[in-house]
C-alpha cells in the first residue's frame, strides 16, 4: 500500500473542503477500501475519514415517513436501530459479512462502491429509495449505473439514504460462503401502490428491477404468480460460483421465497 495523508474532519463541510484536493478519497468503514489500497488498486494522496462526523451517523424516520439512515452509519447500528421501523432492512444489515465487518462497514461506503454482489443496492432500489449527497438528491433508479459505477461525482459525499417503508418486505440472500457476499440476492417490497423486486449479485450491469415479476406480484402477491415466468440468462454473471442458468434459476426461487417470507 502506498502512503497517504490521513485527515479526520468533524463536519461535512470540512470533509468536502478536504476532498476537493487532488486525489483525495473518503474513508468510511474501510472494509472495501483498505483491501483495495493493499492491492494498490487505488493510490489516494489523502484519505478523509468520515468517522469523526456526528451528522453522518444515525437512523430515524423523517417527516415524510421515510426511513433515513445517515451515510456513515455502520451495518451493526442499522441492524439494531432499523429493526422496529423496517425489519427486512435490519435483517439484511445483520447478515452482511460477519460481526467485525458489520462493526466497521457503513451503508454509504457500500452504496458508493456499488459492488455487483452487495446487499444494500437491492434494498434501496426495491424501497424506491433516494441517495442524499452534499449537493443533491438522487433517485435509486438513476444512482446505480452498473458494476462499481454510480451517479456520484468526484468528491461528492453520500450524506444519507432514504427508504420508503413497505407494508411487508423480505430479502433473500443466497450466500457465497467464501466472500460472504450474495451469490444472488432478491429484495421484495410490497407497497399499497404495488410490489417492487430488486435483484443483486446476478447481472453484469449490477442491481436491477424485475418488472415482469413486479407486475404479476402486484396483481396477486403469491409465489405461484411467478410460475409462468422464466428468467432469461442474457447478461447474467458467469463465474466459478455459478453459471448464468444457475443464477436465473436462483432469481426465480429466491423471489418466491421472499414472497413467502415477507412480513
Amino acid at each position, binding site marked *: 500500500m502506498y*502512503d497517504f495523508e490521513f485527515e*479526520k474532519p468533524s463536519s461535512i463541510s470540512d470533509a468536502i473542503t478536504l476532498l476537493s484536493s487532488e486525489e483525495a478519497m473518503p474513508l468510511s468503514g*474501510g472494509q472495501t477500501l483498505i483491501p483495495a489500497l493493499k492491492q494498490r488498486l487505488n493510490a489516494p494522496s489523502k*484519505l478523509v475519514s468520515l468517522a469523526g462526523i456526528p451528522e453522518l451517523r444515525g437512523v430515524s424516520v423523517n417527516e415524510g415517513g421515510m426511513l433515513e439512515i445517515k451515510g456513515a452509519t455502520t451495518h451493526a447500528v442499522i441492524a439494531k436501530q432499523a429493526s422496529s421501523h423496517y425489519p427486512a432492512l435490519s435483517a439484511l444489515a445483520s447478515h452482511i459479512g*460477519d460481526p467485525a465487518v458489520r462493526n466497521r462497514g457503513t451503508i454509504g461506503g457500500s452504496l458508493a462502491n456499488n459492488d455487483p454482489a452487495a446487499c444494500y443496492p437491492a434494498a434501496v432500489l426495491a424501497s424506491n429509495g433516494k441517495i442524499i449527497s452534499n449537493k443533491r438528491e438522487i433517485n435509486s433508479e438513476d444512482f446505480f449505473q452498473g458494476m462499481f459505477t454510480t451517479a456520484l461525482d468526484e468528491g461528492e459525499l453520500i450524506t444519507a439514504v432514504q427508504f420508503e417503508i413497505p407494508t411487508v418486505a423480505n430479502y433473500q440472500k443466497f450466500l457465497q460462503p467464501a466472500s*460472504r457476499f450474495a451469490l444472488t440476492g432478491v429484495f421484495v417490497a410490497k407497497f399499497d401502490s404495488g410490489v417492487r423486486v430488486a435483484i443483486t449479485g446476478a447481472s453484469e450491469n449490477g442491481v436491477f428491477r424485475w418488472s415482469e415479476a413486479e407486475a404479476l406480484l402486484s396483481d396477486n402477491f403469491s409465489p405461484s404468480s411467478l410460475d409462468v415466468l422464466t428468467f432469461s440468462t442474457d447478461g447474467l454473471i458467469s463465474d466459478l460460483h455459478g453459471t448464468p442458468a444457475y443464477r436465473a434459476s436462483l432469481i426465480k426461487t429466491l423471489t418466491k421465497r421472499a414472497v413467502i417470507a415477507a412480513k
Partner: protein
Amino acid sequence: MPKVNITVNNNPATGEVEGRTLLSTFLRDIVGLTGTHIGCDTSQCGACVVHVNGDAIKACTMFALEADGATVDTIEGQANADGSLNVIQQAFQDHHALQCGFCTPGMVMSASALLKENPSPSEAEVRKYLEGNLCRCTGYHNIVKAILAASGQEVSAVAAE
C-alpha cells in the same frame, strides 16, 4: 510523522505512524503485542480480531490513526488479574478448542464480544457469530463447545464430534 495515542489493555501506548500503518502493525511492531495474529491480511480470517471501544473489529482492516484516542483490548489483556486464564480461555483449554493456536486470539476475542452481547447463545448463534473467524485445525466443534461452556451452558448437547 503523525502520532497516535491509544489505550491498549488499560495502558497508554504512543507511537509515530504513517497514514497507512494498520492497527495490527501498530499493536505488533510498535507496542510489541504479537498475540494479535495476521492470517490473511484481507479481512477474511479473523485472526486479528481485537476490541476497539468495546466492539470486535479486524485490526488488519483499520488504520492506527483511526484508533487514535480509542481504547483497544487485545488477547494479552484477557487473563485474570492474577495471571490465570479467564473463563473463555480456560474453556478453550478444557475443551481442546485449539490445535496450532494460530486462530485462537481472534476466536477468544470474538467469543468475548459475543458473550457480552448475548450471555447465553444457542449453538447456532455461536456458529453464526464466528462466521468471520476461520480455523484450519479444529473443525470448529470444540470451539463452539468451549464457548457454550464458557457461557455456563451444558455442552454435551453439541452433536457432532
